[in-house]
């Protein structure tokens, strides 16, 4: 198993390098110059030149890319143009918020997704199954930002139960988490349902029934364990998608997360923050996928024996 993990980690390197190259080039060809947005008021040309030098904006593409990568290897992601803090601390401040938001959303999605999926699989072709499937279809197509706005309208503006912005207390995470989690809950529900339907038809389920197990036990112990295996991969993928979706939800609920920081950084041409942010997000995305694959092997004995 360790050999497999090592190999997967090694394969990460080229991908991350590719990510850095792609984002660096995109930022390089972006018009507009961050110095201007910084030196707003009547900056003299020399001050402008001095700042360009300090931020390392002179020099050709390869030169800048080369010393960016060299500094990166030493763990220095460069400094954020506006606050002059180094990017690592900026990300360290904001990344936990996005992770908190994404994990709440995943938890919400898994809990609701699984329950709805299982219920509609057991009660197939009943009215409940149809309603759940229609709602999950709507859930998938509902834009997360619009859903966020509706929730904010209902719970913050009209009913004033939950705070509309900020991120200090737990109650601030609920609404954005749900808004972010709706899409994933819907797709997990559909995935669980088709997984369960697939499993319930298997012979070992009738064996289990023939053993005299109660319907509840048959479903929870035997059917669910087998149906969950494909669902784990979707949960892993959902976590990755959530990192992307968080960008929108954070800008609605004004959550100081990586997504919002990235959008502002792209707008104000804050290159190091963009590059650092995308790198961290891509890295966590790949790590989550790796964890999911390992989990997959752990849960499914057939796969585990291949890796032993």
């Amino acid at each position: 198993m360790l050999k497999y993990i090592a190999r997967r980690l090694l394969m990460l390197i080229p991908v991350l390098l590719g990510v850095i190259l792609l984002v660096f080039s995109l930022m390089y060809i972006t018009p507009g110059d961050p110095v201007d947005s910084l030196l707003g008021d009547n900056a003299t040309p020399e001050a402008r030149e001095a700042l360009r030098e300090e931020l390392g904006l002179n020099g050709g593409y390869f030169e800048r890319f080369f010393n960016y990568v060299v500094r990166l290897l030493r763990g220095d992601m460069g400094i954020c143009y506006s606050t002059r803090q180094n990017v690592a601390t900026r990300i360290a401040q904001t990344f936990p918020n996005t992770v908190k938001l994404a994990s709440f959303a995943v938890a919400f999605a898994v809990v609701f997704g699984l329950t709805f999926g299982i219920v509609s699989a057991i009660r197939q072709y009943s009215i409940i199954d149809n309603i759940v499937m229609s709602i999950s279809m709507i859930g998938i197509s509902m834009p997360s930002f619009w859903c966020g706005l509706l929730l904010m309208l209902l719970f913050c503006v009209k009913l004033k139960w939950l705070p509309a912005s900020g991120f200090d207390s737990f109650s601030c995470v609920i609404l954005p988490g749900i808004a972010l989690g709706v899409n994933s809950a819907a797709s997990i529900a559909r995935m669980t349902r088709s997984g369960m339907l697939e499993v319930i038809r298997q012979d070992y389920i009738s064996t289990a029934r023939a053993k005299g197990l109660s319907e509840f036990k048959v479903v929870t112990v035997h059917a669910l364990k087998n149906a969950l295996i494909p669902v784990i991969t979707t949960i892993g993928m959902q976590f990755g998608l959530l990192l992307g979706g968080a960008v929108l939800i954070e800008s609605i609920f004004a959550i100081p997360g990586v997504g919002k920081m990235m959008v502002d950084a792209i707008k104000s041409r804050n290159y190091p923050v963009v590059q650092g942010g995308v790198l961290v997000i891509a890295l966590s995305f790949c790590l989550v996928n790796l964890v999911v694959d390992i989990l997959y092997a752990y849960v499914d004995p057939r796969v585990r024996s291949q890796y032993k």
Partner: protein
Amino acid sequence: MANEKLLEIKNLTVHYQSYDATVHAVENLNLSLGNGETLGLVGETGAGKTTTVKSIMRILPTPPARVVSGEIFFDGQDLLKVSEKEMRKIRGKEIAMIFQDPMTSLNPVMTVADQIAEVIRLHDGGSRAEAHKKACDMLELVGIRPERGSDYPHQFSGGMKQRVVIAMALACNPRFLIADEPTTALDVTIQAQVLELMKKLKAQYQTAMVMITHDLGIVAEICDYVAIMYAGEVVEYGTREHIFNSTAHPYTKGLFACIPDIFTEQNELVPINGLTPDPTDLPQGCRFNPRCPYATERCRQEHPENVEIEPGHFVACHLINGGGNENA
């Protein structure tokens, strides 16, 4: 009490209600079985064999399947009237079942010992360790090294998996075992080992058994009584000797004609022409008449009754009841 029937099925009728048609899977079937006896249930696919045994265990998939009428007395108790909770106590304890395809009848994500221990703990109680130990004993009984108990199903061959299924079925030494074509999915050599094992265990535990098969060789080797099913009905019932030596019903004869006989020089087997009837609209009168070489007008009109042509040997065919069996 000795010849008191352990199992008695009285004109059982089961239909499958699909979207636009009803499938008459089983039509008022009558069967009975004594303690320790083995009944062979023979018939082509779609004759309703699996539906019958599943209705005994009451694990028919309820939305489409429906038991229209009939009673199933087991040990004097009508299983169809019993509450679900009560039924669960019987399943696995009193009646056990072995399924056809060993490849898929074991849960792939649970160790073999756990799956056996599960049924033991369910019915005989005891701690987890005791159940586990008993499960290993069962594995040893069926010829599998106990330490392999912690392996997963995918690490066993087809034959070994069937042994595990048998071990699981007999874990709570049930009084009645249903085997739904246990060896069809196995190749011949493994088949012989598994049958040998079942015969040994049957003798050791005095378990009554219903063996579903379409392989007459197995019937000859292991069954005391034989019931020939066709299109949801028992057309001929009798002891092994009756069926093999004094075959009466044309369909049974047709079945035997399909097997190459080692002693006679035959260059061509005589197949029964045609296919089993469409269960949604069964033919009038005797169900076999479209394919029966001796079908008369009466066969096409009137449904034949079950007649005891000799003690313990019943046949449902006008030919036999009406005229003599000159062209048997």
